[in-house]
């Protein structure tokens, strides 16, 4: 029951084919709010040339994108916007948290800066650095491509796994020290 296959035909799984095409045509959504955005622009420009990895098509419409790159600090007034844009993006989609501020709040441990976007949206890759070099962003995209190739399925059933629903970090607020109000002077 041998099937005759011509030499110019390759047999593959549909999942592998989908992953292969997904990973090589990531369309980033630049959510650039701070200085990391400058490095993001440099990554897309000719010197570092993100086009070598098929991820050079920056789209400013979330409906055309499948990779959100959050570059910069996100404040509490911006977070609903971030979540809305994330929800507007179509599946399958991924998120890179670029730089110290997006990943952890960075040095901005104040009342209005969200201490890491992974508290509120799912994040696939974290990039350390303040701001990270373009090479680091490219490395993150390469790693993300490996991740897409490893675990993606065409039906997206990996997104329904229980482990993927859990937040990567517990929502632990830093202890709040209340200063007693009252006397103006000692």
């Amino acid at each position, binding site marked *: 029951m041998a099937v005759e296959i011509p030499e110019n035909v390759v047999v593959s799984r549909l999942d592998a084919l989908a992953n292969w095409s997904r990973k090589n045509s990531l369309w980033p959504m630049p959510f650039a709010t701070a200085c990391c955005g400058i490095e993001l622009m440099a990554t897309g420009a000719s010197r570092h040339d993100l086009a070598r990895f098929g991820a050079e098509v920056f789209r400013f419409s979330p409906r055309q994108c499948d990779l959100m790159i959050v570059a910069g600090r996100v404040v*509490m007034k911006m*977070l609903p916007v971030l*979540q809305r844009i994330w929800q507007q993006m179509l599946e399958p989609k991924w998120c890179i948290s670029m730089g110290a501020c997006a990943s952890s709040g960075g040095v901005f441990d104040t*009342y209005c*800066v969200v201490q890491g976007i992974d508290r509120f949206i799912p994040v696939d890759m974290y990039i350390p650095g303040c701001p990270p070099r373009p090479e680091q962003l490219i490395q993150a995209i390469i790693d993300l491509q490996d991740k897409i190739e490893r675990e993606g399925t065409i039906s997206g059933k990996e997104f329904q796994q229980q482990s*993927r*629903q859990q937040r990567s970090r517990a929502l632990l607020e830093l202890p*709040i020290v209340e200063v007693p109000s009252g006397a*103006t*002077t000692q």
Partner: protein
Amino acid sequence: MASQKALAALTQRFGKLETSEFRGQTRVVVPRDKLLDVVRMLRDELAFDLLVDITCVDYLNYRNAQHRFGLVYLFAVTETNERLTLRVFLDEPQLSVDSLVPLYEGANWLEREVFDMFGIRFEGHPDLRRILLPEEFTAFPLRKDYPLQGRGERHNFPVLTRDEG
């Protein structure tokens, strides 16, 4: 630096005002209820045609401070580059002062910012809303009795998981 003429004219009209000078910058302390009159005189008679900035300082737990809040008004004469700083001190029950919007249109957003950050009310302001923080914010974050990391407002959001996205 404010000219002696302007200072003398102010003193003549409003009596003895506390003044001080530091590195060529003159500062005049104005009583809360006289602010509008002083500013009207600055604008109409002494040619201070530019309101540079309005800001505020919270002196809670400040060494030797007499008052809780100190408003800072910076004025300038654009022709001669003469400058003058007005200070108005406020204490806890009476955290309001006359708005300067009738005299300087530019005071509108400056006063909204001071209101946003310190909760000082400007009487007669046409649109005293928060300008920087979200409207549902209730605290005044630049007051010294407000904790630096906030009271949890920054993390009071729904969490999106994978399949909600």
